[in-house]
């Protein structure tokens, strides 16, 4: 399995090559090609690794390089290759490959074309360091590294004030999560004396419940930041300032899912604390529902999808909080595919409409862009949870699980499902069909995108259609990483502990087989209810935005307070701005004036002036006679000596 090191370092090499030679020699399109080749090599290597793991069921732990030694513990750069990391790595590299190809078309003609592909390659390298890590510090390295790449790419068009602000916001808000995450790492190190996952798992049995809860919650704090969960979610919609391939790759498919991956990776730790699981469940559920409400009323095409991402990430966390880790990871995979598809589809629309973002000003472009429209529809149906698309097979099981485990959670996730179907089809009808609200000048030039953009769309659409039927394979594949009884690397007593920790999900049986699950959905009350909900959401959107039977403006007037609440995103952004941006800045200004200038410098400069005066007085002691100085010296020595004698 030595070849696995190729996976992270191939994009790194691409990054270095483009970084050094991008502007001088490669330019466009060679920079893009280098990047695509770099990521494609890692995709091939990771697929090979995936197959190896799937056939043998083993896990591999390679230590590549000894990074930092702390006491007796070596923090190393290493690879832990088991079903979980193999799946995540494959998702990252494969989705990246298609998004890179799409980007060669999307970024065509941009003056900073090489820089874009250098950053993208850097991102993939960092993301792979994160997914492949076998210890928390390397994870943190990747974690911060993807944060940097995200910052650079959100701010890619940094000439825009909005982009520069969004980039900074994303980094700083993420750092709030990272602060907690780092404290979690430190606590874990103090408790376990190691930061390797497998060694930590091995020592879980003897650790105090409070401590384990604290570690899990602190680490989860990092996930809340990175995966943009409430209350640290505000940066993600603003991150849409970045080019659309970035939104697809980083802010939908991969990076924001890192938090979900991290929780799954550390499943034994989280499962050891009921409070930790409940917190994950609560935050996930709240995010799933609240973000969906925010997405209902937005008009920026990318932001609607961004809120949808927040919401879907919430579903994944909810699944993990329910103890259904495999379902969470399957939804992550599924979401990576259909959300990348939706974002790339919107990117294709943006190119055709010259970066017009407001869905209220679009409409009736479906015929001119058949491939984009068709693939977008597939993505939307998947998101809404309509069979046979993959979203149905990954999202419905989570809601069904919630029904068995926690009614409160079920209500929110169920409600969220209706909202999801509604907002995505509102977007769909407004963008591609409905009336002609488009500026005629733009309408003239609406055209389908070139093949390097449509082929990735088609590939992702095909994946969206077929992936759901591999449900059983995925669930079984993940067992050696996420089912305590199958986890070879856990000692027996920890297996018992983790198994008990997941007891909330023991009575739940969710059909792994896709055909059986479909059959169950079409026959059981709950299945029909969920399917009906999704269809109702779509149908409502159809009535309002396509048939125009109900005037959306009148609806808005009827529900003005609620509309305002949703439209202003529950006032999170406003309150945060007032307190943490404006408040912090003003407080700093005031502190600077009062603390540094008036008080501290007042004393310093004041004592300077005082000493001038004192000097005048003391001058009188300097008589210029040797005997006088000798006397003063003697007094000094006597003081010192008596001090010693006195203190001894």
């Amino acid at each position, binding site marked *: 399995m030595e070849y696995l090191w190729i996976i992270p370092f191939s994009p790194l090499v691409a990054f270095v090559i483009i970084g050094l030679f991008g502007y001088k020699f490669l330019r466009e399109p060679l920079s893009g090609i280098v990047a695509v080749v770099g990521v494609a090599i890692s995709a091939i290597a990771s697929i090979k690794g995936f197959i190896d793991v799937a056939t043998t069921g083993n896990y591999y732990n390679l230590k590549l390089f000894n*990074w930092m030694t*702390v006491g007796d513990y070596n923090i190393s750069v290493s690879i832990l290759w088991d079903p979980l990391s193999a799946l995540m790595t494959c998702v990252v590299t494969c989705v990246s490959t298609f998004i890179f190809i799409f980007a060669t078309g999307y970024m065509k003609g941009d003056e900073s074309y090489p820089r874009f592909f250098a950053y993208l390659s850097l991102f993939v390298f960092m993301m792979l360091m994160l997914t492949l890590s076998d210890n928390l510090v390397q994870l943190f390295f990747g974690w911060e590294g993807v944060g940097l790449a995200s*910052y650079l790419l959100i701010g890619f068009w*940094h*000439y825009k*004030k909005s982009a520069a602000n969004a980039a900074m916001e994303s980094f700083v808000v993420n750092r709030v999560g990272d602060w907690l995450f780092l404290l979690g790492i430190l*606590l874990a190190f*103090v408790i376990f004396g190691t930061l390797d996952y497998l060694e930590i798992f091995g020592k879980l049995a003897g650790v105090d419940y409070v401590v384990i809860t604290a570690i899990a919650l602190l680490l989860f704090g990092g996930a809340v930041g990175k995966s943009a969960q409430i209350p640290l979610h505000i940066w993600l919609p603003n991150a849409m300032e970045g080019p659309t391939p970035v939104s697809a790759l980083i802010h939908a498919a991969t990076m924001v899912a890192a938090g979900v991956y991290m929780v799954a990776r550390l499943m034994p730790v989280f499962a050891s604390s009921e409070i930790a699981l409940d917190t994950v469940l609560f935050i996930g559920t709240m995010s799933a529902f609240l973000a969906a409400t925010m997405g209902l009323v937005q008009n920026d095409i990318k932001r609607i999808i961004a809120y949808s991402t927040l919401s879907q990430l919430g579903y994944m966390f909810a699944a993990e909080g329910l103890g259904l880790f495999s379902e969470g990871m399957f939804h992550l995979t599924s979401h990576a595919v259909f959300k990348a598809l939706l974002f790339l589809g919107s990117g294709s629309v943006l190119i055709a409409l010259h970066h017009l973002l407001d869905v209220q000003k679009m409409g009736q472009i479906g015929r001119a862009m058949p491939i984009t429209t068709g693939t977008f529809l597939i993505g939307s149906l998947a998101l809404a949870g309509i069979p046979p698309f993959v979203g149905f097979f990954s999202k419905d099981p989570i809601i069904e699980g919630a029904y068995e485990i926690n009614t409160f959670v079920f209500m929110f996730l169920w409600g969220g499902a209706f909202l999801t179907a509604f907002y995505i089809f509102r977007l769909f009808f407004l963008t591609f069909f409905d009336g002609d609200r488009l500026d005629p000048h733009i309408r003239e030039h609406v055209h389908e995108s070139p093949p390097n953009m449509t082929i990735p769309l088609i590939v992702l659409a095909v994946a969206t259609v077929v992936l759901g039927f591999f449900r059983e394979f995925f669930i079984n594949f993940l067992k050696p990483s996420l089912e305590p009884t199958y986890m070879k690397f856990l000692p027996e007593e920890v297996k018992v502990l983790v198994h008990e920790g997941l007891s909330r999900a023991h009575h739940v049986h969710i059909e792994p087989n896709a055909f059986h699950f479909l059959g169950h959905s079409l026959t059981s009350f709950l299945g029909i209810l969920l399917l009906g909900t999704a269809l109702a959401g779509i149908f409502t959107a159809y009535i309002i935005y396509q048939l125009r039977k109900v005037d959306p403006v009148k609806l808005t007037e009827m529900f003005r307070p609620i509309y305002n609440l949703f439209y202003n995103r529950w006032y999170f952004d406003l309150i945060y701005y007032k307190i943490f941006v404006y408040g912090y800045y003003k407080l*700093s200004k005031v502190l600077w004036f009062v603390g540094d200038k008036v008080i*501290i410098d007042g004393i310093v400069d004041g004592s300077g002036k005082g000493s001038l005066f004192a000097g005048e007085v003391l001058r009188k002691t300097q008589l210029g006679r040797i005997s006088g100085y000798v006397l003063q010296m003697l007094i000094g020595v006597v003081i010192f000596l008596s001090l010693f004698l006195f203190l001894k």
Partner: protein
Amino acid sequence: MTPEFVNAGFPIITVSILIPLVAAAIVFLLNEKFAKPISIVSSVVVFILSSYMLLTYDPSGYKIQFYEKYAWIPQFGISYEVGVDALSLTMVWLTAISFVVAFVWSTNIEKRVKEYFIAFLVLEAACIGVFVAWDLVAFYVFWEVMLIPMFLIIGVWGYSERIYAATKFFIYTFFGSLFLLIGVIGMYIYNYVENDVLSTSYFDLLKLSLHYNLEIIFFLLLALGFAIKVPMWPFHTWLPAAHVQAPTAGSVILAAVLLKMGTYGFVRFNLPWFPEASKYFMPVMFTLGVIAIIYTAMMAIAQTHIKRLIAYSSVSHMGFVTIGTFALNQEGVNGAIITMISHGLTSGALFLAAGFIYERLHSYEMKDLGGMAKFVPVFATLFMISAMASAGLPGLSGFVGEFLALLGTFKVSILTATLAGLSLVVGAAYTLWLYKRTMFEEELLTEEKKEEYSKLKDLNTAELWSFLPLVIFMFVIGIYPNWWINLINNTTHFVLHKIVGG
């Protein structure tokens, strides 16, 4: 624990101190056009010597290496005693690299060119002297000598309010040194009273076992001298004033080298000499360290003058060194030392960046800046790397030291580590704010400004070669910190031997 002394076959340290002085003499004698090349060559030679020492230093066990000792004033037990352990050595190396950078950068000095370079060369000799001296008289002489050229650099080649800043710098640090002097003399007399020996050697005084109350008093005397130099909150206000007025190269040296002397003093003297007092003052130092980190980070974001912002960020970073040092454990002190090295590199680079911007746009005020990134891409990249290293991004130098310092602190005080860790957020805020306000948001520029910007030149050769060494070592330390940790481990062990035993 007595260290071994490994004598130098060749007096490499003395030579390192003499080279800048000889170069200063030559500059004085020759035409002013030779001033810069001679300074660069001499500083490069010193850098090569220090790198040689760094690479040949034997990190196993605690040995004072390249050791030289000659009697100076034997009647009073004063000698010329120099040598390096890993702490001294890394600081000497940092000094050497910083001066190379400072000299290479100093291109367009217009007034008193010879004097400018002479001041810097004397400063270099004094700085190296401070870090290598094991005799306290020599140490104190170097410590004071250093003030004069720095005073001149700010006072003569500074900006409009240079006299105020230079005077404040001088009087403030001089004031601090007096307490240091009293402390050292006190130790000297005490040693005489106790053991009937007159000696100013560091190691002789180390053997003293002081009464608890005396330890406290001496600790405070030395600490005041060092705290002003660091500078620790609330003794920090001289620093922004000095930085704002100092010429770019002066700021680089001030931030990269001079600030380290305060923290060097704490690690070198306070911890080994006063172990009980160090434990006693741990909570005080933690408090001051945390205030430095959070409060000055807020000061930084309140600034519109970019050099003042960077100056405050220095105080904030030095807070990490303070808490790491006073965690009084291996990780903490290792972290403190690596943060010292890293901060030397990053703050030096950030001041270079400020200098670069000023030379192009003739302003340090944010309202006159912004939107440069596109026009000067190479600079923008190096500036970004430096900013990220400063913000503690893993893989670059800043993270290593801060991680270790936080880990050490966390072991003794979770609260301190939690609050100090907030610098992850507030530190990122002011760093990115600085970057955004100088490099991004081109669309806010007026048309005339854009016209002016399109004529901007990216880094010239001298500027590039000043930046590169700093940036390269940010990566070297960040990617392979183990080499550095291994280098300093036994020195840290020695520093702590009276505190943790063994």
